[in-house]
């Protein structure tokens, strides 16, 4: 029987999009819009980013009430304990303009659910959470979440009881947010590593809640929009 895929570990083809990306970058450098060295340094730094430090921050907060207090009071300081220095570890050695200013950790309770958006553009706490997912950038999410948060969360598969308040936090140039969800039942006695595994990127944005055994994000959205965004 013929195999569905060619047994290749990588894409052995240069697409027009790859060519376009290189051409745009090279022309920008040639025109003096930025230097090749700066671009390379920043790219290398960006390759180091991902959601694991934020997941670890949450796991530590679940295990250590003092650390949780610190995280909620001073997210930038708490980030140091998971290896993220919002100011000094950047290639600039003085932070980044759109990410460094302020990280706030939003603590959920059984009666309060936070969810993060950026209605202006797509601000995201990249140093501690990596690159934003596609849906986070879309007008559909950004416009609708502030108007119909429960519906939008339901489209992500998160049905909340009526007695749970939903609080939408709008990111901006000076503040970034991550959600500290409620520690789920069934995780008693778990280690920090075990707990960090179930704190997915979507839990940290607030469109999902952690569950034992669930260690990956769902494809999004899982249900069609009730009130779709109209241009």
């Amino acid at each position: 029987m013929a195999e569905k895929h060619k047994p290749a570990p990588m894409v052995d083809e240069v697409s027009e999009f790859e060519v376009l990306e290189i051409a745009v970058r090279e022309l920008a450098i040639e025109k003096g819009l930025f230097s090749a060295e700066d671009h390379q340094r920043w790219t290398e730094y960006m390759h180091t980013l991902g959601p694991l430090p934020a997941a670890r921050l949450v796991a530590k907060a679940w295990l250590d009430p003092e650390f949780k207090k610190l995280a909620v009071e001073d997210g930038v300081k708490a980030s140091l304990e998971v290896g993220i220095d919002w100011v000094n570890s950047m290639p600039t050695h003085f932070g980044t303009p759109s990410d460094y200013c302020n990280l706030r950790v939003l603590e959920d309770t059984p009666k309060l659910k936070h969810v993060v958006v950026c209605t202006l553009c797509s601000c995201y706490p990249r140093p501690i959470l990596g690159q934003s997912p596609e849906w986070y950038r879309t007008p559909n999410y950004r416009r609708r979440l502030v108007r119909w948060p429960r519906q939008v969360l339901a489209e992500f598969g998160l049905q909340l009881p009526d007695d749970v308040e939903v609080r939408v936090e709008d990111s901006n140039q000076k503040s970034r947010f991550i959600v500290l969800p409620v520690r789920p039942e069934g995780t008693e006695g778990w280690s920090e590593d075990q707990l960090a595994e179930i704190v997915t990127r979507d839990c940290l944005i607030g469109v999902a809640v952690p569950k034992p055994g669930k260690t990956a994000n769902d494809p999004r959205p899982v249900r069609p929009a009730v009130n779709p965004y109209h241009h």
Partner: protein
Amino acid sequence: MAEINPKYHELDNEMRERKLDESTPVSLLEDVKHKGRVWDDLCEEYGVDNPDPPWRITLEATCDMLAGGYWETFNVCKPKEERNPEEEEKKLDAVERRWEEDKLVEKYYEQVPFPERQLLALAHTMIRRGLFDEEELARRMEEVDQRLNSA
């Protein structure tokens, strides 16, 4: 109920006054849009499961570099009128770029997946703003294509 950041409406008005909501299709980019093979299709064909093309991070870095703030960190956090005016014409403000991306995607690139649509919108914005022109970009793409495919 939370509301959309009021700055979005201010931005909307400012960009419309500057006529940055008006655009025409860029034939070079239309060609790429129609003929280019997107990452999802390449992954399917080659059995690769990386969700992002290898150029996604370099594209993000290009966008960050164009904002001009990472190496002059406080520039981007400052209101525009307080930034270094000589450098401003070389910059592509991140918030403006994202606003234009929203509009261009809506008008021309909605059927293109991400991050290919981000790339097309960025190139479109740069051409529209005169940071380079379509012919220059076409020539450079030919050069890059020959370089990568002659190895």
